[in-house]
């Protein structure tokens, strides 16, 4: 029934392009046998997605039962397409080295590229979905595609990580589905049977008439369900493993994009609950989980021995900060949360780009075995230093600005809550600087990774560095000066979020 009622998506609708380019691209990439051609094609397809996502600004499509674009998701669609593109660029260099070192066979690479585009498709589908059932199916499919990519190296650790990720997130999205059914049940007496009671834009207008107890119960399930995918403590157990054992470009998109998408899903339901007015307050729950995540991650950071795990825990911390900010609510805190989402996306993926290059040249992911990067590889080493300082929240980079706004808005509304956040940030800062010192400075360790035998062409090496530099440059610019229109627009979205 529902597919036949599929609203007409005509060719002038940019949403159609944003969704069909990666989907068709995935199909094509599954057929391309040569990895070199596939890597280039992957970049071209991702660039096409970015291009068509920009058209959303020019011609914003009308909403329908399945898809809609508003101020909130348009920016996440563009961000997702952009980071998807830069990661594809980085991936072409990364994959080049892995393939030359014979860690990945052509068959695996073909699979990897097809899955990469399929993954982008599912994320964009989740972001543009109006129907909460479609949103759920998209998040579920995103889990499936990433599980396949996390297990790509077929080592015991990778398989264990993929399995753990799979089981924990399957249970998570199972609970999210139960929450979705409860939301439908709450909406159905008001909206009538069928599609309108699952269309977000229609539900939000009449959410005040929904039965409050039912929607409260639904939100608890949705928070636990989608919260698992966001990686909020104590539901974060899958996250470090999945980030550490998969290929590094996948760690970058997992951290930079997928966590955002899951949080986006949660926020849509938060808006619904808030619009109801009589249901439970979603704020305190989100503040609680956010604070827990900040603290758990902050202390975990000190004991990490693996460089990718270190930054995976840092992602838990940052998702905690963002959830905390949205939980506080109000114009300034929401603004800070949105800015932090963007900055974290850019900086964290940049860090994973750097980590990928470092672990390839050092031949290890053990922090203790990586020393003196600024001496042995000056350019990469210093870029890494800048990226880590950015994620730790040092001015003048963008994350400082958003963290500052989170804290100042908290102190303005509820000073007592500001103290644990500042404490958590300080502990994290200490851990990151401690680890950074060892890795970046001092006597350089012997580089036992891919040496001269897997040297790439100049073009490929540039492709590997360019995403890192551009992300850091954007974070720096945002930290120094946010253009007026961007600020106005973030403010409009912050107001939308309530």
């Amino acid at each position, binding site marked *: *029934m*529902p*597919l036949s009622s599929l609203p007409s998506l005509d060719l002038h609708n940019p949403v159609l392009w944003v969704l069909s380019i990666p989907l068709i691209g995935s199909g094509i990439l599954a057929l391309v046998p040569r990895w070199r051609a596939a890597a280039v094609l992957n970049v071209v397809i991702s660039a096409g997605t970015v291009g068509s996502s920009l058209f959303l600004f020019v011609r914003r499509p009308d909403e329908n039962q399945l898809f809609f674009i508003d101020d909130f998701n348009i920016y996440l669609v563009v961000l997702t397409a952009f980071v998807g593109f830069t990661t594809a660029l980085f991936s072409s260099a990364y994959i080049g080295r892995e393939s030359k070192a014979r860690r990945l066979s052509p068959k695996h690479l073909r699979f990897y590229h097809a899955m990469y585009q399929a993954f982008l498709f599912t994320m964009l589908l989740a972001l543009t979905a109006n*129907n909460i*059932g*479609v949103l*759920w*199916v998209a998040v*579920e*499919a995103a889990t*499936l595609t990433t*599980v396949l990519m996390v*297990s790509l190296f077929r080592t015991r*650790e990778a*398989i*264990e990580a*993929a*399995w*753990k990720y*799979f*089981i924990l997130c*399957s*249970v998570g999205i*199972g*609970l999210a*589905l*139960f929450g979705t*059914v*409860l939301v*439908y*049940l709450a909406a*159905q*007496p008001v909206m*009538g*049977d*069928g*599609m309108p*009671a*699952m269309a977000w834009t229609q539900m939000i207008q009449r959410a005040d008439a929904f*039965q409050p*107890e*039912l929607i*409260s*119960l639904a939100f608890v399930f949705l928070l636990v369900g989608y919260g698992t995918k966001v990686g909020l403590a104590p539901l974060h*157990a899958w996250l470090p493993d999945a980030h550490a054992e998969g290929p590094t470009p996948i760690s970058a998109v997992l951290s930079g994009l997928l966590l955002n998408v899951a949080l986006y899903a949660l926020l849509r339901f938060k808006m619904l609950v808030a619009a109801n007015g009589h249901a439970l307050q979603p704020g305190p729950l989100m503040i609680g989980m956010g604070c827990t995540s900040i603290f758990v991650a902050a202390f975990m950071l000190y*004991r*990490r*021995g*693996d460089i990718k*795990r270190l930054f995976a825990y840092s992602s838990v911390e940052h998702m905690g900060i963002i959830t905390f900010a949205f939980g506080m609510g109000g114009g300034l805190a929401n603004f800070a949360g949105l800015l932090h989402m963007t900055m974290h996306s850019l900086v964290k993926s940049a860090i994973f780009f750097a980590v990928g290059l470092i672990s390839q040249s050092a031949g290890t992911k*053990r922090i*203790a075995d990586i020393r003196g990067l600024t001496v042995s590889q000056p350019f990469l080493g210093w870029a890494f230093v800048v990226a880590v300082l950015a994620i730790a929240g040092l001015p003048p980079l963008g994350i400082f600005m958003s963290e500052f706004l989170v804290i100042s808005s908290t102190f303005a509304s509820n000073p007592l809550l500001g103290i644990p956040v500042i404490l958590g940030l300080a502990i994290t800062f200490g851990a990151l600087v401690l680890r950074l010192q060892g890795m970046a400075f001092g006597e350089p360790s012997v580089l036992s990774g891919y040496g001269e035998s897997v040297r790439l062409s100049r073009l490929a090496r540039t492709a590997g560095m360019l995403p890192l530099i551009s992300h850091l440059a954007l974070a720096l610019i945002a930290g120094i000066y946010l253009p007026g229109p961007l600020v106005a627009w973030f403010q409009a979205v912050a107001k939308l979020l309530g």
Partner: protein
Amino acid sequence: MLTAGFEYHTAHLIGAVVLMMGFTLLYQRRMSAVIRAYSWQATALALAAAWQGFVQHAPHLYATAAIALLFKGVAVPLTLSWLVKRLGIHRTVETALGIGPTMIAGVGLVALSIVLVLPVTSGAGAITRESLAIAMSVVLLGLLMMITRRNAVTQVVGFMALENGLILAAVGAKGMPLVVEISIAFSVLVAMTLFGIFFFRIRERFDTLDLAYLETFRGERQ
């Protein structure tokens, strides 16, 4: 013409059978019995979906019923038995928590979902309320099974039982669209888990609680 009372009682009865099978899953000691109990649960779910399709005049629910019957009731159990044989998985169920305490916890969870759901859904029709309470109990029992069983296969059966509860909730929600799509999406997920067990030869559950093992294994301890 059927009376509303008959429709309600029949839906209630079938839902209760699904729930009973959820309990049956908890006290099995042999792997083959677990798989058989799961098969029966899926069959009961198919019946529930078909009945809801009939009562709600929603023909698409017959598709959900067919998926439940053919895929979950027949194909999945057969694959699981084959996997157990092929991978040489323990034929007895390894428990993390004894069967007695698990059953008591299960009764507690059913009570919890009734206490939680019934007052909350006072606005909805009776048929929705009760089937939602039953569905939530099935979901929680599946979760309980995942937690209290050590072996990967029993863990996966727990997940699939949880999923049966979710589909039961979805078919019970009057006029809910996309139920077929959702059950297809879940079937893909289930197929992937089975494939995963076979492909990765996963016999044991990865015990996240066993930190010492994990840390030495990953070189986390410095």
